[in-house]
C-alpha cells in the first residue's frame, strides 16, 4: 500500500505563498510517509507535450503547485485543461516532459491506480458516482483504507470509519439521503457526493474539473467555503469557467491557452494582463 494518511498537523500553520516556512514543515513526517515535499511543491510539470494524431493538445507546459495551495486553472475551451488532468492522473501519457508528485514520485511511470493510491484524487467534469450503490456505500468505497481484493473480501467498517463517513455526509449535506441510490440524486447532489468521495479518500492533491457546473448560487457559495476550508490541509487544483467562483476562492490563478501557460498570478493581475484579455476575456 502506497497510500498514506495525511499528516494533518504538518500542514496546520497558515498557508504561506512565498514558501518560506514550508521546507521546515515538509521535512519529517511527510517524507517519512512516502511523499517527499521538502521543496514545497506538491506537483511539478515541466516541458510537457501531448499530441493526438498531430494535434498538439499541450505544448511545453510548465506548472508548479505548492503544498496546501488552492490553484485555479482557467482558459478557453480546448486550452488543454482536461488533458493536463489526464496527464497528472496517468490516463494520458505525455510525449515528453517531466511530471512529479512531491519531489520523488514520477507520475509518467505510474499507473492510474498507483497515482490514486499515492494521494491524487480527481473529480470528473461530468459527475461520476456509482449509481447502483447508495450514497453511504459510495463513500464507503472511496474511504481511505486497504483496497486490495483480499482486504475487500473481509472488510468491516470500524467505528472510526463510520464516524468519518457520517462526518463527510454532514459536510456535503447528504445525511438525509444516505440510503438513496446515488443514481437518483440531482446533478448538484452528485457533484457534492463526488466531492465527498474525494474527501473520504483523503488525497494530498485534489484535481477538480468544473466542480460547480450545474449548481445553484447557494450551492456554489457553499462549495467555495468548502474548498477554502480544504486548502492548507490539502492542495487543490480547480478548473472552472465561473469567474465569480474563481474570484471567491482563488489566491493564485493560471491561464492556459493552446496548451501552455499564458499568465499566472492573482485573479486581478491575470485579468489585467493584456494577452489574457485578448485571447480569453474577449477583445
Amino acid at each position: 500500500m502506497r497510500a498514506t494518511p495525511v499528516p494533518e498537523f504538518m500542514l496546520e500553520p497558515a498557508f504561506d505563498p512565498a514558501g518560506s516556512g514550508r521546507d521546515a514543515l515538509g521535512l519529517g513526517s511527510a517524507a517519512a510517509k512516502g511523499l517527499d515535499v521538502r521543496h514545497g511543491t506538491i506537483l511539478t510539470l515541466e516541458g510537457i507535450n501531448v499530441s493526438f494524431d498531430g494535434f498538439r493538445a499541450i505544448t511545453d507546459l510548465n506548472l508548479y503547485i505548492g503544498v496546501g495551495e488552492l490553484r485555479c486553472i482557467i482558459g478557453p475551451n480546448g486550452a488543454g485543461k482536461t488533458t493536463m488532468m489526464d496527464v497528472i492522473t496517468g490516463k494520458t501519457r505525455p510525449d515528453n516532459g517531466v511530471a512529479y508528485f512531491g519531489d520523488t514520485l514520477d507520475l509518467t511511470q505510474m499507473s492510474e491506480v498507483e497515482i490514486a493510491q499515492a494521494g491524487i484524487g480527481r473529480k470528473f467534469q461530468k459527475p461520476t458516482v456509482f449509481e447502483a450503490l447508495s450514497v453511504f456505500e459510495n463513500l464507503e468505497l472511496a474511504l481511505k483504507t486497504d483496497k486490495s481484493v483480499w482486504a475487500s473480501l473481509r472488510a468491516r467498517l470500524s467505528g472510526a470509519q463510520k464516524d468519518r463517513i457520517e462526518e463527510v455526509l454532514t459536510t456535503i449535506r447528504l445525511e438525509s439521503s444516505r440510503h438513496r441510490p446515488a443514481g437518483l440524486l440531482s446533478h448538484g447532489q452528485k457533484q457534492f457526493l463526488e466531492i465527498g468521495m474525494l474527501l473520504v479518500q483523503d488525497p494530498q492533491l485534489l484535481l477538480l474539473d468544473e466542480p460547480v457546473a450545474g449548481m445553484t448560487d447557494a450551492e456554489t457559495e457553499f462549495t467555495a467555503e468548502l474548498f477554502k476550508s480544504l486548502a492548507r490541509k490539502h492542495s487543490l487544483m480547480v478548473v472552472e469557467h465561473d469567474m465569480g467562483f474563481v474570484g471567491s476562492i482563488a489566491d493564485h490563478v493560471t491561464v492556459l491557452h493552446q496548451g501552455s501557460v499564458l499568465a499566472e498570478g492573482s485573479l486581478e493581475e491575470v485579468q489585467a494582463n493584456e494577452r489574457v484579455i485578448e485571447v480569453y476575456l474577449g477583445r
Partner: protein
Amino acid sequence: MPTALYRILLSLALLLPLTAHAGEAADFVAASPAKQAKLLESWAAQPDPARQALLDALQQGRVGVGAGKTAFLKVDGSWQAAEGQVVADGTPKTLRLNNRLRGLLANAQAAQQLLSAEPAQRLAAAQELQKKAKPSQLSLLNAQVAAEQDKAVRAALALALANLQLVDPDPAVRLSAVRLLGESGDPLARTRLEGLLAEGVESDAAVRTAAETSLAQVKRRLLVGELLGQAFSGLSLGSILLLAALGLAITFGLLGVINMAHGEMLMLGAYTTYMVQIAFQNFAPGYLALYPLAALPVAFFVTAAIGMALERTVIRHLYGRPLETLLATWGISLILIQAVRVIFGAQNVEVANPGWLSGGVQVLPNLVLPYSRMVIIGFALFVVALTWLLLNKTRLGLNVRAVTQNRNMAACCGVPTGRVDMLAFGLGSGIAGLGGVALSQIGNVGPDLGQSYIIDSFLVVVLGGVGQLAGSVLAAFGLGIANKLLEPQIGAVLGKILILALIILFIQKRPQGLFALKGRVID
C-alpha cells in the same frame, strides 16, 4: 521459320485422306497383342498427323475387326472400312485393348499432340510425357526440344527428356540430364532427383554431386512457388474475411451495434445467389453463366431490406446497450437459420460455378491460381473502394459520420438520425449479402454458413480498430495470410488457436486495434 513451316505442312497432311497411310490400321488389327504394343511404341516415337483419326478411334473404342482381319472404323454409329473399299462382311467385332496397350496408346497420343499448333496442347502433351515417356522416344524428344519455341513447353519437354536420360547407361548423358533437371521448378523433378540420390541407385560420383546441386536448386524454386501459393491463399482467405467483416465494421464501428446476425446476412446472400441461379436455369438458361453478376444487386437489396427491417423493429430500441444488442441479434440469427432450414432444408444447396469462374492459370509448375479466387480478391477490393467512396464522398456518408460522432448535434442540424441509422445498417447488411454471393462461389451453401464466419469477422474488426476501414482491410489480409502461413507448419486448428493467442497479446500493446483514434478521455 522452319518449325512453323513444318507444322503447317503437318497440318496440311492431316487433311489428306487416310489412304495415304494405307495398311497401318490393317496391320494393327491383324497383329498379335505383343506386335500391337510394338506398333504403338514405334508410332509414339514417330508421330504422324495422318494417324490421328486411327488413334482417336482406338482410344474411343471405335475400331472394329471385320472378316479377314480387315479394319473398320465406326463413324456416326455405322461401320466404315478404314482402308480401301472393303465392304463390311457381317458386323465387325469391336477391337478391345488391354491396359498395357491403352497406356501405350495414351503415350502415342501425347507424342501426336506434340505436333499440335496449340502451345497449350503441346504443354499438356509434354507433361504427360514427363510421366510416361519411353526410351524409344528419346530422339523425338531431342528433336522437339531443339525445335520448340514456346518457353513453358520447352521447359516441360526438357524435363521429360531428362527423365529419360536419367536411366541412360552413359554417365555423361546422365550428368547432362541431371543438370537439365536442376533448371526445372517442377515437383516431379524433385521426385526424380531424390529417387536418383536414393541409396544404391546412382554410382557415378560426379553425377551424384551434380544431382545434389540440382536438387537444392529445384527445392529453392519449389519453395518460392509454395510460399507464393500460401501467400495467394492467404490473400484469398483475407479477401473473404474482408467481405465478411466489412459490413460488420460499418454496423459495429459506426453504429456501435454488435450484430451477431451478420453471419446470417452472408448466408442469406448465398441463398439469394442460389435462388437467382434457379431462376436463370428456368427462365434464361442461355445466360446461365451470367447469374453471379445478376445475383450481386439482388443479394444486396434482399439483405439490405432484411437488415433495415431488423433495425427498425428490434435494434433501434437497443442503441447504447451493446450487450443487449448482442443477445437480441443472436436471437435473430437463430430464427433466420431455422427459417432457412425449414424452407430450404438442412442440407447444403448446390451453387455451381459458371465456366468463367472455374479453372485457373498456371503460374509456376507447382502454383495454380484459380480464377474464382482471383475474381473474389478483386471483388473484395472493389467493394472496399465502393464503401469508402460511399462513406467519404456522398451525402449519406457525411450523415453517417456526423451521427457517429455526435448524434444529438447531428439531429439538431437536421440530420434524420433514425433514417441514417436504418440506411447505415442496411448498407452493412447489403455488403454482407455481396459477401455471401462471393462465398457461394467457393464453398458450401448451407444454413450454418454464417456461423463459421462470424467469430473470424469479429476478430478482424477488433484487430483492425473500430470504425476504421483501412484497419479492417489490413487486419483481414493480415489474419488471412497468417492463417495460411501457419497452416502447413502446425495444422489449421492449432494455427487458429495460436492466432487467437497472438491477437490477445497484440491487444495488450494496442488496446484500440491497429488504427485507433487517440483523443482526450471523455468522462
